[in-house]
């Protein structure tokens, strides 16, 4: 090899490390960047949809999962496709910016090439552009909007309410919103959103007399077309989150009530019926096969960035089902053609929000900066530098969760630790500083208490079985969304396709089998029981990181999986 060639290679390596786009596919993609958001108009009515932004107002990194297993009817079907299989299924070329947005493939390098995603100022620019070319449109927010950041938690959702009002959200439904407590939610809906954003939930009623708590559905005239939108809040909010925060309300899927509202909307002349749903995609796919008369389900909760809409047949015809990812990373565009008072066609595109390709909207940027300013110093405190990629998503564990588990075990002196399988939380690239804001992105909830409990081996197994069934019950109506509880210090085997009670086996602590009757010290956080106390998770995590200063790549504790050969929901 000549001296020149060696120098050239060194230079390329340095350029790659500095984040310059080099791959041929990436270069080719970059050439078309200017037209990336030119989405040709179709039909006469448009729905813009985002969901599960988790209060992320600034551009961020977000790594999609490489493990998202489907079981039963969901096996090897969207949304349970990851990596190259996902690219192939949706006709996305590897190495492109779309591949970066929809998969975890080569994430750290692709992230440096294509830059951050999301950010409300960039999202606002995109919304404005699309609405300018689509006068007959609605902007729909699927919920999980008021929770997920420090500033949202400290203002009890207020910064997000101001941001979504400015963004021009017409209609929303909810899930984590309820964790601010039922009084706060009512206060916001009645005082802050009135006249601006309709808050819809057909599946919430009072526990005592069964009265509706929120408006179930609304009719909007869009370019002369009557469009009905029905709201579906997360059906299992009082189970997945603390019930005491929404004590007077009862939820559930409420299929029959939904059918009644669909029929009512049709009877009142709706040409299009839309369900704005926080069910989760597997639940929506089942529901679409059972409820008649819904044209489109715009879904969220499971954070599935599914590039195309799925068509589901039912007794009344067909229903189109989508899921629009999370963290402000995507904006969905559903263009509908409505003729003779019915939907005759559609075009769907899930647009990744690439912050570099969209200039920040000035008004939104100002609002974000203004609301963040009083907290800026605290939020930007650098706690440590990470050597590895930190992320949360994945069915069984994420590197950021592993850090949380390690912190819990170290600080609490526990034998093992549990951390909830939340699907929100931003990613951090190797070499970046971990700030207090990043820590809050992982922990900002209204019940952040850390706990140390003595549990018998039998209880430990029961907890794992219980959570695992919420994830892998073959009937989607018995799933709650979220991922498997993260486990630190203890190894185990998991067979997702087995029955409840038989999925978890071979539980071991430092190689020794867990004994059913022996007691173990288990650290955890985010308890749903009323009256729980303990130091907030962000303090434990911050303390751990400050002590570390430099964080080596976490060693991911993953269960040994049984019976997942040939499952397209797992990739290296």
């Amino acid at each position: 090899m000549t001296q020149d060639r060696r120098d050239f290679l060194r230079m390329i390596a340095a350029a790659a490390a500095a984040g310059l786009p080099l791959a041929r596919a990436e270069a080719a993609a970059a050439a078309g960047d200017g037209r990336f958001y030119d989405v040709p108009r179709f039909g006469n009515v448009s729905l813009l949809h985002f969901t599960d932004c988790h209060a992320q107002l600034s551009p961020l990194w977000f790594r999609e999962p490489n493990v998202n297993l489907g079981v039963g009817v969901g096996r090897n079907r969207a949304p349970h496709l990851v990596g190259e299989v996902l690219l192939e299924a949706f006709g996305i070329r590897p190495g492109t910016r779309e591949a970066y947005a929809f998969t975890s493939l080569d994430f750290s390098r692709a992230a440096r090439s294509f830059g951050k995603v999301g950010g409300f100022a960039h999202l606002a620019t995109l919304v404005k552009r699309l609405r300018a070319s689509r006068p007959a449109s609605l902007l729909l927010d699927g919920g999980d909007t008021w929770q997920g950041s420090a500033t949202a938690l400290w203002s009890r959702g207020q910064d997000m309410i101001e941001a979504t009002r400015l963004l021009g959200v017409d209609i929303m439904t909810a899930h984590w919103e309820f964790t601010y407590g039922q009084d706060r939610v009512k206060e916001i809906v009645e005082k802050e959103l009135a006249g601006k954003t309709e808050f819809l939930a057909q599946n919430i009623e009072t526990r005592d007399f069964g009265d509706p708590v929120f408006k179930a559905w609304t009719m909007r005239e869009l370019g002369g077309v009557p469009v009905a939108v029905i709201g579906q809040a997360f059906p299992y909010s009082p189970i997945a989150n603390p019930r005491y925060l929404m004590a007077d309300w009862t939820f559930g899927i409420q299929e029959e009530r939904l059918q009644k509202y669909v029929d009512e909307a049709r009877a009142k002349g709706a040409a299009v019926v839309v369900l704005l749903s926080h069910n989760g995609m597997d639940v929506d796919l089942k529901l679409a096969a059972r409820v008649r008369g819904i044209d489109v389900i715009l879904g969220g909760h499971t954070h599935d960035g599914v590039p195309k809409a799925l068509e589901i047949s039912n007794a009344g015809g067909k229903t189109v089902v989508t899921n629009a990812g999370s963290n402000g990373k995507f904006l969905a565009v559903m263009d509908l053609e409505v003729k003779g008072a019915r939907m005759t066609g559609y075009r769907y595109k899930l647009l990744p929000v690439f912050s570099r390709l969209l200039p920040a909207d000035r008004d939104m940027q100002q609002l974000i900066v203004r609301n963040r300013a009083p907290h800026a110093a605290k939020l930007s405190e650098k706690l440590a530098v990470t050597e590895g990629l930190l992320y949360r998503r994945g069915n069984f564990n994420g590197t950021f969760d592993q850090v949380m588990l390690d912190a819990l075990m170290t600080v609490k002196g526990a034998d093992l630790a549990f951390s909830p399988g939340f699907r929100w939380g931003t990613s951090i690239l190797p070499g970046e500083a971990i700030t207090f804001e990043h820590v809050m992105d992982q922990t900002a909830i209204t019940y952040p208490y850390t706990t140390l409990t003595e549990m018998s081996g039998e209880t430990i197994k029961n907890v794992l079985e219980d959570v695992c069934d919420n994830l892998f019950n073959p009937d989607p109506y018995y799933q709650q969304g979220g991922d498997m509880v993260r486990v630190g210090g203890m190894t185990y085997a998991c067979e997702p396709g087995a029955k409840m009670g038989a999925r978890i086996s071979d539980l071991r602590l430092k190689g020794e089998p867990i004994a059913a009757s022996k007691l173990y010290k288990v650290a955890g956080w985010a308890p749903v029981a009323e009256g729980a106390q303990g130091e907030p998770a962000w303090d434990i995590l911050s303390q751990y990181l400050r002590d570390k200063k430099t964080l080596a790549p976490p060693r991911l504790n993953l269960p040994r999986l049984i019976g997942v050969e040939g499952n397209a929901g797992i990739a290296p």
Partner: protein
Amino acid sequence: MNGNEERRKVIKAGGGIGLLGLLAAAGLLPAGEALAQQQWNSGAFGARNLADAVKALGGTPPAENKAIQITAPDIAENGLVVPVSVTSNIPKTESIAILVEKNPNLLSAVFEIPNGTDPFVSTRVKLAESTDVYALVKADGKYYFLKKEIKVTLGGCGG
């Protein structure tokens, strides 16, 4: 039909101590009488499965019937008070019972459906663990059922 006859019919359809206790607690049956009536049908109370319960009630083995409708949560929000409603679209429905497979007392409630009333009942049952819940309908002297799984979970970890 006088009050006593009606009461007796309820007891015949139900028969369990659980039911009698419930009726007494609800003031529908004087406590003393509830105790006196316990001998009436201990078989139904002791039954460990639906077929045995129906047999003890003097009925033929029940047949699954989709004309029965159970409205209940798929996952209970609170296992201590789980709302369960049953509608029967079977002609000549005489009574509706709600049974919980994994409860120590199988039988949770029995409702008489007088002629000319809507065969719709609603109550709350207590569940300690995930279980099948049965709606048992007696219509024109025959028994029919429909079952639904209700999951009871530890909660948390969603989202």
